[in-house]
């Protein structure tokens, strides 16, 4: 048992933090407001090999795990730059292709995940399926050497910056259970018949969400991941790293908020003492700090389990739940600590609200995590 990060992990933290601090939250917000992408930050992290730390070394990656990738995301978020596509591209899509893809697919995509050149979006959510993935309605029908995709996905992040999308489809229905049999495809973003429409959200972030309309989109059979019908198992493989990464992003955002709040609480005097000496402000900040640290411990445990090929589902879900709640609490209290300035554009807290609040809902909602813990960890009956 050891709670101390290795020299390499600490140096990775330090280097990423230094790079991200050159950009900072104002860079991130400016990109969002100008409808641009944080390419300079992304590219600088990529050039230094930080975006492919979890890719196998035979594909040019760092040969380490999700733990290290989570460090990269946490440290960028702690500087006010939560890079959402780091959750989707190298943490959901890449591990699924690595574990289940043919060697052709691996050779085509993994080297460019490793360099950070390739951004891939992930599309599972649908208007009518919601949290119930068995109910997906986007279908893929085999037609000779190709599959034809039809249906609608929504809330898909980063499609405008992605070269391809990993799409979860239904290829058949299990007659006995009436549940869909799922299959995953890598679909080129500019495929014929694939239309997209921006889905406006109240989040200040450079990444945008889209509704995707598949109208007989032709996808070569070689772009099927693994065996047809095995999609659910494959999706689950991507979900644990996704949850671990969202935890890291939340913890980084919470650290950002608490750093600002405690700095301000030390400096600001309304009466003749710094406001941080009033327990009405210091105690809620202390509680937020405790909850962030607890969430961080669980996230590290989850990453460790995943990297050591053990079942990480329970820990990853618990980490995602607690990290999102801790980040929301930290940001809320940081805003409160700043008085009216907390809402100002200049201070850079209120604009974070959308991104941080989102983590209670996506990529898996608080309720679905509680359902999982209730049924999986406590053996309670399901309501659905």
């Amino acid at each position, binding site marked *: 048992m050891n709670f101390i990060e290795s020299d*390499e992990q600490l140096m990775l933290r330090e280097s990423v933090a230094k790079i991200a601090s050159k950009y900072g939250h104002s860079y991130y917000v400016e990109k969002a407001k100008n409808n641009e992408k944080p390419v300079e930050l992304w590219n600088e992290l990529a050039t230094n090999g*930080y975006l492919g*730390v979890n890719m196998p070394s035979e594909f040019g990656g760092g040969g380490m795990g999700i733990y290290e990738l989570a460090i990269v995301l946490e440290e960028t978020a702690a500087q006010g730059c939560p890079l959402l596509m780091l959750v989707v591209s190298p943490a959901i899509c890449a591990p699924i292709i690595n574990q289940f893809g043919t060697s052709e697919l691996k050779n085509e995509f993994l080297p460019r995940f490793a360099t950070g050149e390739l951004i891939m979006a992930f599309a599972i959510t649908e208007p009518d399926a919601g949290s119930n993935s068995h109910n997906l309605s986007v279908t893929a029908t085999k037609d000779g050497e190709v599959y034809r995709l039809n249906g609608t996905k929504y809330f898909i992040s980063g499609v405008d910056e992605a070269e391809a999308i990993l799409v979860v489809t239904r290829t058949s229905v299990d007659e006995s259970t009436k549940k869909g049999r799922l299959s995953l495809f890598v679909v080129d973003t500019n495929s014929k018949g694939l239309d997209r429409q921006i889905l406006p959200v109240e989040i200040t972030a450079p990444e945008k969400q889209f509704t995707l309309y598949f109208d007989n989109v032709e996808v070569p059979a070689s772009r099927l991941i693994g065996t047809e019908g095995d999609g659910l198992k494959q999706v689950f493989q991507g979900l644990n790293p996704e949850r671990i990464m969202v935890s890291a992003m939340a913890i980084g955002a919470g650290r950002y908020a608490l750093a600002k709040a405690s700095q301000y609480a030390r400096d600001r005097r309304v009466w003749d003492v710094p406001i941080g000496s009033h327990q009405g402000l210091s105690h809620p900040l202390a509680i937020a700090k405790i909850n962030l640290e607890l969430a961080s411990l669980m996230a590290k445990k989850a990453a460790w389990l995943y990297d050591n090929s053990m079942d990480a589902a329970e820990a990853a879900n618990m980490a995602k739940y607690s990290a999102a709640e801790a980040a929301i609490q930290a940001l809320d209290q940081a805003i409160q600590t700043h008085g009216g300035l907390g809402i100002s554009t200049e201070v850079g807290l209120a604009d974070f609200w959308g991104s941080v609040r989102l983590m209670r809902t996506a990529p898996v909602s608080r309720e679905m995590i509680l359902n999982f813990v209730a049924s999986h960890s406590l053996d309670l009956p399901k309501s659905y």
Partner: protein
Amino acid sequence: MNVVVCVKQIPDPATPGEMDSQTNTLKRDGKLIMDDSDSYGVEMGLQLAEQAGGGEVTLVSMAQDGETSGLRTALAMGAAKAILVSDPALKGSDALSTAKALSKAISRANPDLILMATESTDGYTGTTPVQVAELLGLPSVTFAKKITVDGSSIKVERQTEAGYDEVTCPLPAVVTVTAGVVEPRYPNFKGIMDAKKKPVEELTVSDLGLDVSEVGSSGSRQEVFEIVAADARQAGEKVVDEGEAHQKVIEFFEQLKLI
């Protein structure tokens, strides 16, 4: 082009330093980090070796208890190896004692060029580099902002208050590098992972062929008798702008003969 860069490992300046009440010197027991001032020399050394198309950077450091944590960053940046001088007998070394140990270690690497920071962040004496040069019998150039290698000599742009001097100097030589003149690279992920595999040769005083009486507190000619707090800074003059503040600011600068 083989370059030695001297790297000092110091207590993290971000955490408050503690003085040893017995010796009146800085306590150095905790984890040490690379002095930021040295990162510029490391970067310059790496650039010179790369430009020369061959050769490598060797780090030389002196620290207690075999401490190497402050060397890892420079190894991750791309230095090939390190020589660490560590020996309980070195405790209490002043600048000259340090220079004796460093110069012996440096000569083992047989470098074409030795780079050091102009001064360390924890000691601020700024005397060690020239003492090293003297002990090695080499020329020294201080306050470099740019170094160009030209065959067996170097051209150094040496920062001065008025601008810079151009100094030409034969190799090998000791050059001190001013902080901030190059942008130190970030260790890339491969560099970070490789750092631990790079050799760090640990040497004692006797390995260097020195006698314990020459170094450490016994060899030091410097003793700190007392530490006193610096005078608190006087409050400055506040200029309230009622329309003619710019005039007062100009007068103030004129008084200081700045304009």
